[in-house]
């Protein structure tokens, strides 16, 4: 390693902030805004857009709860209700949860590993534009009457051309193409960023746990997303637009094969959403217990294990379809195994809390809320892995309760915790802790009030996805409580938004490291400059900010007249070579626009794919056009 280190010229000057600023500042004007490629800007755009979709999905949830508050309610008819629950699930899974996690990853990972940007900045920008356009395209269906009512899972034949007329399902299937492209872009660039652009000395066993979780999540995206392309695009869209009958039982197609492929994506999707949240919990705990997470290797192995096992249990969504028993037993075992890897992390966190010096910030409130809700959701998850119980609980409100416990508890609460924890890093102001705690308590009580009664409604026989129910079924109390709880969640969300807006304007100005944390993102000013680090850091510990400031080292000799970063080796993070990141460019945006036009046309005529290819090709030519002055290495 030292041999490689010496190759870096050591005699050069310290960084020149003016020079860095000249190289990294965004181009002016509207086209400059469209050309941005810095990871913080792109990451924040992801987060803001995803938050907007969270609000949309939340409004849809409230509408459903209003409809179900009373038996035989006629607020929404069956068609509207079916559309709204489809939109709710789709929005939350594809347009909120995954992009939000990716946004946080894009924001934090380069800072945590100590580099200046993600490995492929233009790809990053392109991914964001595809996501944004996919979301707009999907919701444009509301105005053209093309909203699917076939559920977010779009089981055939119900979602097929015979039973779902109109363009709603096509819009849905093509929207997935957009979010998929976006997710794959982020996955690729985060993997390369984490594996090849870590600060010198940050060997893999010193990688912050959040980066580990993003690494595993990104790898999962790469394996899971092709399956959903297969299901939504190859099976469903082709069946609907060119009559392939791949999933149409009337013509020899197989609806169960569609389900297998859908859930081969659909189950890992859940872990794609919640692994980054586990990473956030680890980081928040580390900062607020003043110690490294107990059992770091065990936590890392659990994350990796989660990633593997997640691909082996999709069939537990299909226990009622009548598959062979021996196979079902395997999937029961695999589904329960996921409780081991999750359990190990919970135990390690509790051990960390026990032996640390606890500081109860607002973020920590959300972490404790997460522990309560997520562990409870895990328990019902173990129950659902058991085939006999699943055969009763499957597709009832028990399942609705379960996955909201694991997804809201497992992902949204850590995410809100992360908002409070990292708010200062990206806004330069501290978030109001008192309001944060208030919003936590409203959300926590509201959440349990909404979703706990659903367990009871479920075991009392209430199926999912019903737009109404008769009064004599005995479900009205549970449903009314759920609806009241949903209103409470809305209030909690409003307090949270109010807090964010207030703190943005009038919060205490934050210094670089308000929590005395351990990781590199806290070494730079809040908000960080576009180039992140004046001098790239060198790391000699898993907790680089907890060692004496005098012993901290940095890389010198990096050129500051171009967007230069240092790549390092995969395992030991020994310096490897200089890597020049491309300049800002409007071509990712233009390419995304071209592909969007083509993909939208493809919903109406298959030849749209030729248009997409052509426009995409033109975009890529512009994108990869070499810069006029190629610098020759001295």
């Amino acid at each position, binding site marked *: 390693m030292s041999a490689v280190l010496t190759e870096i010229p050591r005699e050069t000057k310290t960084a020149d902030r003016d020079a860095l600023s000249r190289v990294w500042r965004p181009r002016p004007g509207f086209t400059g805004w469209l050309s941005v490629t810095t990871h913080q800007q792109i990451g924040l755009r992801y987060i803001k857009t995803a938050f907007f979709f969270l609000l949309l999905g939340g409004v849809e949830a409230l509408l459903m709860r209003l409809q179900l508050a009373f038996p035989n309610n006629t607020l929404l008819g*069956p*068609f509207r209700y*079916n559309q709204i629950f489809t939109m709710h699930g789709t929005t939350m899974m594809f347009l909120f949860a995954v992009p939000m996690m990716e946004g946080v990853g894009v924001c934090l990972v380069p800072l945590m590993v100590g580099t200046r940007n993600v490995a492929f900045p233009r790809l990053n920008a392109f991914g964001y534009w595809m996501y944004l356009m996919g979301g707009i395209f999907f919701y444009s269906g509301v105005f053209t009457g093309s909203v699917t*009512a076939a*559920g977010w899972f779009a089981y055939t*034949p*119900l979602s097929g051309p015979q*039973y779902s007329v109109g363009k709603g399902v096509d819009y849905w299937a093509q929207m997935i193409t957009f979010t998929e492209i976006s997710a794959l872009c982020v996955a690729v660039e985060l993997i390369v960023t984490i594996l090849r652009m870590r600060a010198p000395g940050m060997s893999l066993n010193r990688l912050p746990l959040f980066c580990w979780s993003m690494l595993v999540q990104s790898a999962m995206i790469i394996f899971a997303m092709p399956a959903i392309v297969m299901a939504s695009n190859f099976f469903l869209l082709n069946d609907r637009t060119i009559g392939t009958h791949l999933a149409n*039982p*009337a013509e020899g197609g197989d609806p*169960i094969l569609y389900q297998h492929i859908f859930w081969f994506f659909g189950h890992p999707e859940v872990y794609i959403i919640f692994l980054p949240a586990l990473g956030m919990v680890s980081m928040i705990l580390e900062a607020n217990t*003043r*110690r490294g997470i*107990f059992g770091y290797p*065990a936590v890392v192995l659990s994350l990796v294990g989660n990633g593997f096992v997640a691909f082996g249990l999709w069939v537990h969504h299909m226990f*009622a379809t009548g598959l062979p*028993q021996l196979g079902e*037993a395997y999937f*029961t075992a695999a589904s*329960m*195994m996921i*409780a*081991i890897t999750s*359990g*190990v992390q919970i*135990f390690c966190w*509790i*051990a960390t*809390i*026990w*032996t640390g*010096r*606890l*500081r*109860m*910030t607002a973020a920590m409130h959300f972490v*404790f809320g997460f*522990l*309560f809700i997520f*562990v409870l959701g895990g328990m019902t998850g*173990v*129950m659902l*892995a*058991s*085939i*006999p*119980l699943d*055969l*009763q609980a*499957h*597709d009832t409100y028990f399942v609705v309760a379960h996955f909201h416990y694991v997804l809201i508890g497992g992902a949204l609460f850590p995410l809100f915790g992360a908002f409070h924890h990292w708010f200062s890093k990206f806004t330069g102001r501290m978030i109001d802790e008192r309001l944060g705690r208030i919003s936590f308590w409203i959300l926590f009580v509201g959440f349990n009030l909404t979703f706990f009664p659903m367990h009871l409604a479920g*075991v009392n*026989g209430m*199926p*999912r996805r*019903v737009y109404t*129910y008769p009064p*004599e079924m*005995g479900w009205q109390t549970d449903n009314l409580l759920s609806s009241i709880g949903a209103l409470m969640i809305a209030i909690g969300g409003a307090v949270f938004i109010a807090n964010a807006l207030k703190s943005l304007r009038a919060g205490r100005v934050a210094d670089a490291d308000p929590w005395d944390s351990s990781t590199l993102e806290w070494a730079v000013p809040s908000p960080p400059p576009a180039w992140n680090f004046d001098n790239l850091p060198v790391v000699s510990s898993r907790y680089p900010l*907890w060692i004496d400031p005098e012993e901290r080292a940095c890389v010198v000799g990096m050129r500051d007249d171009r967007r230069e970063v240092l790549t390092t080796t995969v395992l030991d993070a020994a310096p490897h070579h200089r890597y020049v990141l491309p300049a800002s460019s409007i071509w990712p945006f233009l390419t995304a626009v071209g592909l969007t036009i083509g993909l939208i046309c493809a919903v109406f005529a298959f030849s749209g794919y030729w248009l997409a290819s052509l426009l995409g090709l033109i975009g890529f030519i512009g994108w990869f056009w070499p810069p006029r002055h190629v610098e020759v290495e001295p």
Partner: protein
Amino acid sequence: MNAFPLLLVSQSALEPGGTNASRILTLGEGMVFLLGIIFVAVMIMAVIPLMRRHRGIEQEPLERTHQPSEATERKLAIVVGSAAGATVVILLGLVAVSVVVGKSISTAGMPSHALTIEVTGNQWWWNVRYMNDDASKIIVTANELHIPVGRPVVIRGMSNDVIHSFWIPGLQGKRDLIPSRVNTEWIQADRPGNFRGQCAEFCGLQHAHMAMWVVAEPEDKFDAWFAHQGQDAVPPATEELQRGQQVFLNSACILCHHIQGTEAAGQVAPDLTHFGSRMTIAAGTLQNNKGNLAGWIADPQGIKPGTKMATVPVKSEDMQPLIDYLESLQ
């Protein structure tokens, strides 16, 4: 306001009336108990540090880091390792128990001498056929199953359009009805009673109104019911009822509905041969009485928006005879 004053509504997995549902409930109770204890234990462990004196955010500054001693870490490793080991053992136990119970409720665990009933899902009602080696003894009905108490019944589940799921929580877990496939499960009632169930796989607009009833009755009562269902429809006894029959046979009703012993031979809607003996109309949407039936015939789309039941124009003076006739089909 109770739409089903006469029917004992039971669609709860917590009130089992059959072997399989009881086994599942016992397993569920055991798991809730065990997992509940674990949950409480984990929560207590997580909350204890909060009980100790901890620092609020305002009480800065803290020591910069606090890395516990090697000895503490070793002790922790033992505790955490044991907890993880215990998790593995408990989960293995749960897998084993689940597989055993799963086998007992599957068709592999079914006693012999079963009655076979074919249930076909349709948007949004259930077609029911009692299978018999003698084809003339096959009986067809809809949305209501009668089964003898204490005798296993095999359900052969199929679908005519989209995927549905057959689910009677008081008797057994659910089984999807998938077009182009046949799925089987078995149910057995241990006590007489009416068990409600409804479609459990989202099947479109009126998924919410696709219920069915299983009436479990003693063997002799079941045999009588079965023998009666096998017969042709009761011929209209009075002039009024004859008029009602003519209204039915001369309208579009016969394009879809079937009444054994008449010219009505439609095959795409519920069989009405013994309609009057059934408890509900429109797959559990309404209780079966004359008022509800009149409302249903007059405006099916108002009661069950999206239903495939056509709005057949019936002259107002014809309505009463028609209703009387249909309700007379005991």
